[in-house]
């Protein structure tokens, strides 16, 4: 039901860009805004983790022997996993490393992997989807086959099967000392390889209908080049889809990284990531529950917040949705 609004004719009618329209709708979604705030907070803490730890004088790799009870299976001293004024979230059983320090440094690793992967998959997905939809014919057919192939692969399964041995080869090829650097690069590359196909398919079908619209025909008849039509005419109308995809893929990649490291296939000790922390904590989950519950809760909060932002974004930016405005 559309309500008629009185138009104030004294004011100049300002055109509002799709961005502006979407943002205005998003702003009034209270749940989404709160979630956005939480997500931004997590990102800030993750990327400011080094200065934060420097100020607090904490080190994610330092072992505090005084915080663990050597007579009691090296479990943390004190209740709640050794939470104290020095160790805000307690210490690790066994080695006594600070959980808070590891949590925020680990957040940086996990969030970086998820963000870079999302951005890469979206860029590739958009470009390939655009090319397939724009040039149609054989190009489209060839790309369609590749997408079919990628989507038929059991992605998570493949990742598990190839990540570990490939990381070793990559480490040798790059000549780096830390295997985790190779693992991070590899995770990003592999997740991207399997991640772009879904979006490319969506974009392709959009472009197929968009390219028959008048503004594209107009540009064509004015002699615009393929590049200009693709990037200047078609691309702007596809951004909303990319934003929706970004907000939904970010939590997805975050959990995938955590799950892989949890299975012992992603990042390895001593580098912290949320998955590594959870993997380490499993054996102690029964005796020192906080050690497991802290990274678990943090992961769940961030993923939930990102998912809610994602829902909010798709509500705000989806042009097909009917609204009572």
């Amino acid at each position: 039901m559309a309500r008629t609004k009185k138009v104030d004719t004294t004011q100049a009618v300002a055109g509002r860009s799709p961005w502006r329209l979407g943002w205005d709708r998003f702003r009034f979604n209270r749940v989404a805004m709160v979630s956005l705030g939480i997500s931004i907070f997590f990102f800030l803490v993750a990327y400011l983790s080094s200065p934060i730890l420097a100020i607090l004088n904490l080190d994610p790799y330092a072992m505090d022997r005084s915080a663990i009870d050597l007579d009691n299976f090296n479990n943390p001293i004190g209740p709640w996993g050794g939470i104290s004024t020095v160790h805000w979230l307690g210490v690790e059983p066994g080695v006594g490393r600070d959980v808070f320090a590891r949590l925020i440094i680990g957040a940086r690793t996990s969030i970086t992997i998820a963000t870079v992967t999302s951005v890469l998959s979206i860029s590739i997905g958009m470009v390939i989807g655009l090319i397939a939809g724009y040039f149609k014919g054989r190009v489209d057919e060839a790309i369609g086959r590749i997408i079919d192939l990628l989507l038929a692969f059991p992605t998570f399964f493949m990742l598990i099967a190839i990540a570990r041995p490939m990381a070793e080869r990559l480490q040798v090829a790059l000549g780096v000392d830390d295997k985790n650097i190779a693992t991070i690069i590899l995770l990003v590359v592999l997740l991207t390889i399997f991640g772009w196909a879904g979006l490319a398919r969506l974009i392709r079908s959009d472009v197929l209908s968009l390219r028959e619209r008048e503004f594209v025909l107009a540009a064509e008849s004015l002699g615009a080049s393929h590049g200009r039509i693709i990037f200047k005419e078609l691309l702007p109308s596809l951004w909303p889809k990319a934003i929706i995809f970004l907000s939904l893929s970010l939590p997805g990649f975050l959990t995938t990284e955590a799950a892989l490291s949890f299975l012992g296939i992603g990042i390895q000790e001593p580098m912290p990531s949320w998955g590594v922390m959870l993997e380490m904590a499993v054996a102690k989950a029964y005796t020192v529950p906080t050690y497991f519950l802290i990274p678990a809760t943090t992961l769940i909060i961030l993923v939930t917040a990102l998912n809610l932002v994602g829902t909010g974004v798709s509500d705000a930016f989806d042009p097909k949705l009917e609204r009572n405005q």
Partner: protein
Amino acid sequence: MGIYIFRRTLYAIALLFVISLVVFVLFSALPFDPASLTCGKNCTTEVIEANRIRLGYDLPMWEQYVKFLQGIFIGRDYGHGVASFTCPAPALGYSFFRQECVTSLLITALPPTIWLAIGSVTLWVGTGILLGIWAARRRGGAPDHIINVLTVFATSMPTFLTGQMALTFLIGKFGWIPPPDYYEPYQNFPKFFSTMFLPWIVLALPGLAIYARLTRGFVLETGSEDFVRTARAKGLPEKTILWRHTLRPALSPLTTLAALDLAFMLGGAVVTEKIFSIPGLGRLTIQSVIQYDLPVIVGTTILAAAFIVVANLIVDILYSVIDPRVRLK
């Protein structure tokens, strides 16, 4: 119609070939010598070389692939004389680590995965649809809100966390449910059921939320269609309207989705199987990865891909049968 099915099947077979090729090349390019992995620490070069020839790793890669394909159709013999062994068709390779043909390993690991998959998919599709209907019928009411919150949490909780938490707290701390173990259903059904119960729920949670949300959308959408109003106007009971009219158009998209989900699950629910120690395909993969047992990894990956390709094929064919609007050349 027949031509469509024929062409679609051919395409699926071609896709499977390409997948097997990609997987094979990918694993052959990995940085180890599969032959030197065949025996332990005190191993002589002669033994390694003998094993290399016996397992066919001395051949060029394309020949290895041809042998691999041959094995699938006619079986494969390794070596000659006393030390030889045979894997009958369909042979997917030989695991030297486990001293067993990959196919028989897969066959042993398949039943637990099938039970896990069928149980959880049934649970999530069934409960999801019922919850979705409930939410749609009480739109804006308490059930709708509860389900909204539930779906947000269920989609945000990674399976490995819910699974681990259930294991630690429900089983470890309170001992409400028997510890993980695997029983054959036809040997000890009560034990089978009580140990599979938790894995089913854990695996079903995210899917359940998605189906609830989808069904809610479908019911609300078709609920405002003319034919539903007509049905109501001619005085049909609400139950008939819901099940015979409102839900009918949702049938084919939901079947498609369920079939594809089942196929994904049949490839092995790696995380759940690992956490609950279910001896299925997922756990087999994880173990093989840790032991660098390459032939088994190749086998499980190809099998998992085959499930997806076949499910896609079945769904496409069913679609053209169920839905009269889809008439394909």
